[in-house]
């Protein structure tokens, strides 16, 4: 069932999302409307990391 998805690829895409969100925060974080909304976006990205990225490097031993 886990073969339906390429977990490592999903994890890379989530990493790109985080990088983009952090870039936006750095560029516009002095504006409250950007800072607060990106903070919420980052919290959601964290949930994707907990759901996907955390397991990407866990291999069968």
């Amino acid at each position, binding site marked *: *069932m886990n073969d339906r998805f390429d977990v490592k690829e999903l994890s890379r895409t989530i990493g790109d999302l985080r990088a983009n969100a952090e870039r936006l925060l750095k560029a516009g974080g002095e504006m409250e409307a950007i800072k607060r909304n990106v903070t*919420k976006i980052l*919290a959601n990205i*964290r*949930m994707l990391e*907990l*759901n996907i990225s955390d*397991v990407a490097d*866990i291999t*069968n031993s």
Partner: protein
Amino acid sequence: MNNNDIYWNHILETLPYERLRQLQLKKFRRIVDWAYNNSPFYKKLYRDSGFEPGDLKKFEDIQKIPKTDKGMLRDVQKRPPFPYGDILSVPIEDVTTFRQTSGTTGTPVYQADTWQDWEWWSECWSYILYAQGYRDTDRVFIPFGYNIFVAFWAGHYAAEKIGCEVVPGGVLNTEARILKMQELKCTAFMATPTYVLALAETATKMGIDPIKDLFIRRITCAGEPGASIPATKKRIEDAWGCKVYDHIGATEIGAWSYECTSQPGGLHVNDVFFLVEIEDIETGKIVDEPGKNGKMIITAFDRLGKPCIRFDSKDVIRWADYTCECGRTFRMIDGGVIGRADDITKVKGVLLAPTAIEEVVRSFPELGDEYEVVVSKAGDVDDILLKIEMSSWHAEKKDLILARLQDQLRLKTNLGYRIEVRPLGSLPRYQVKAHRFKDLRKKEGSH
């Protein structure tokens, strides 16, 4: 959305055991490292015991790490930053949500959550609700006055996250809630088992049959162990004509366990968000074998504002000796929370768990939903008074029913009871935490 998929996250929920253990160790190390470097409380706790995060090399090392308990969480609140104390692991400005425990066992514990922590709460509950069949076609009613307690806030947001339409029934009274559920054709609701029964009772009094006149397909219970007590679960399912699911969570921990639609008699532990250990109450050794009761030591891997690491919850649980046909590899606890280590008390020299009384009382259809147990001292001897409700319809069979009840109570608890029969509806009704077990011996002894 793929509504045929029974998993919220099939990758994690079906992860093979070995990989699950690897993931747990990785996440345990991460939260310990975080707490050590960001919380003065945890740094001192670990340093005083001679532990450094680098000592955590293999799974078995986890048992060497000091535990925390509610008393410690209360004490730390006396220190800055107000009102949480130096267990706080983020700047106070990052805290966006305040909750507190009910204070049933003493001073309430204050809980700080960041926005990310709060998203995590919803995520935990999304696992629960999805496993219990909630989908974007559900209209979910929450008959509860949301407040400073955590109850049902996360259930609300998780239901939204799943795509359900959520109807908050907070300030309405019981009758108005029933009418609103009927008017909106709500398909699911969440409440304490006590209140689920009270809703059915009130609906019936209003001339509304919960099965025929309402549209409820599933109910999620929280706050009390009732939905895992077979007699109570049956009583609720009979009253509502639908499936009733249990879940377990706590303010200072998170929502860590849940029943799925397969309902094999136990609850799944969310092993990817929590590490549950069971400790033998007498020896303190970790229990891995099924069927042996012990108290739960729990870690929330991903809650950062106020980390919960190796927390002695005092909940008594046991591992199940069966797996679930749903295919989840998450471990199972048999029968939910069996009791609390500080609730299980000696009466007449016998260990008594209040849930055992509930199991017996609720298995008698002739008795009302409510009951109350009062333990006191009559001279030097313990006395147990059990107050029950019985309809006048059963007056002719009263003696027979009481004799059967005494037999079953003795069989299940090894104790004799004085029984007081009250009219239906005369005992207190509770919406949140029921206080049915009253041990007056402690108060008497304190004078």
